[in-house]
């Protein structure tokens, strides 16, 4: 499949606010993205605006404050999908097509039960929570992430393992938690399944606490994928660093228009789809 034919569904509801950057990231790399409102998939719209999830090759949940972050971040978006589109989303994921959730999108994937997705594609109840940062505050700054995946995740296939990238974080609820009595057991399971994709590190690439890790998240985890590797959720924003000039140290680089650290996430997924379909 040619990259320009790859259709990307950038899904939004009221309060989503990073759909423009998400759209631009895929557009920049030559794909065919579209900003789609959830009601266009559920059919609560004029017939001409109706869309079918099955017509897309990539599904993307952008960042923002969907439904005002009311109840819990991502919970309302997730509940609305689950009540109307659960079979469509399950089919999409089981067919191997990539699903990406960034920031609020990661919160949606967790609330929806698509991540960590240990025993079934879409768990009936959430198996994790993205909970309030330890600091109790909205944390907004560039963060360093070490790529830890051994090759399963389709969004990082072009990023060597162990490489440190800089993606900006901007969230108040990025603290990944599992049931407290089984937390380390679940982290081990994630490691065994090769589901850990990014961990927060300091500038030297060592695991470090606050402020390097903005949330206090378990085992410094910033991003995980499902056991099959085609669903990725991460708190920091790769779509905000598509060019070097978007990095804080851009004046020290030769070419401000050179690719930024985030580009690899989108290009890996597009390469995967173009090879597979």
């Amino acid at each position, binding site marked *: 499949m040619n990259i320009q034919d790859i259709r990307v569904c950038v899904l939004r509801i009221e309060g989503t606010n990073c759909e423009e950057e998400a759209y631009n990231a895929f557009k920049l790399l030559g794909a065919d993205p579209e900003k789609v409102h959830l009601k266009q998939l559920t059919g609560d719209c004029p017939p001409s605006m109706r869309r079918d999830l099955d017509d897309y090759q990539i599904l993307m949940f952008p960042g923002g404050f969907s439904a005002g972050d009311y*109840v*819990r971040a991502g*919970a*309302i978006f997730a*509940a609305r999908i*689950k*009540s109307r589109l659960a079979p469509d989303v399950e089919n999409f994921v089981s067919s191997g097509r990539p699903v990406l959730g960034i920031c609020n999108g990661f919160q949606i994937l967790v*609330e929806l039960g698509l991540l960590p997705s240990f025993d079934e594609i879409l768990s009936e*109840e*959430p*198996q*994790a*929570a993205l*909970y*309030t*940062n*330890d*600091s*109790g505050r909205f944390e907004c700054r560039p963060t360093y992430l070490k790529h830890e995946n051994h090759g399963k995740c389709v969004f990082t296939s072009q990023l060597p393992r162990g490489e440190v990238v800089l993606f900006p974080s901007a969230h108040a609820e990025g603290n990944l*938690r*599992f*049931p*407290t*009595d089984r937390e380390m057991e679940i982290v081990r399971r994630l490691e065994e399944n090769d589901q850990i994709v990014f961990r927060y590190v300091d500038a030297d690439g060592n695991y470090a606490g606050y402020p390097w890790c903005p949330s206090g998240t378990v085992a410094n985890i910033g991003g995980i994928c499902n056991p099959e590797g085609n669903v990725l959720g991460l708190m920091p924003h790769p779509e905000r660093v598509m060019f070097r000039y978007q990095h804080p140290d851009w004046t020290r680089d030769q070419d401000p228009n050179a690719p930024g650290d985030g580009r690899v996430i989108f290009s890996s997924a597009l390469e995967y789809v173009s090879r597979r379909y």
Partner: protein
Amino acid sequence: MVKADIRIELKHGVADPEGENTRKALELLGFKGIKSVKTVKLFEVEMDAEPEEAKEAAEEMCRRLLANPVIQTFRVDLK
């Protein structure tokens, strides 16, 4: 009409940064002897239903949206 008070609490052992920061702020305001501050969320849902149905519906609301069982518990009281 029935009113359901749906109380969402953090599970035992889950940190409560909002409660902890509020405790610190209250101490800075000069309040003494505070042992702990916990945050809970309360939804008041009014329904046209029989009490039994209302309770069942409220519990279903918790399972489908209002509570995340990984970190939260819920309790429904009818009024």
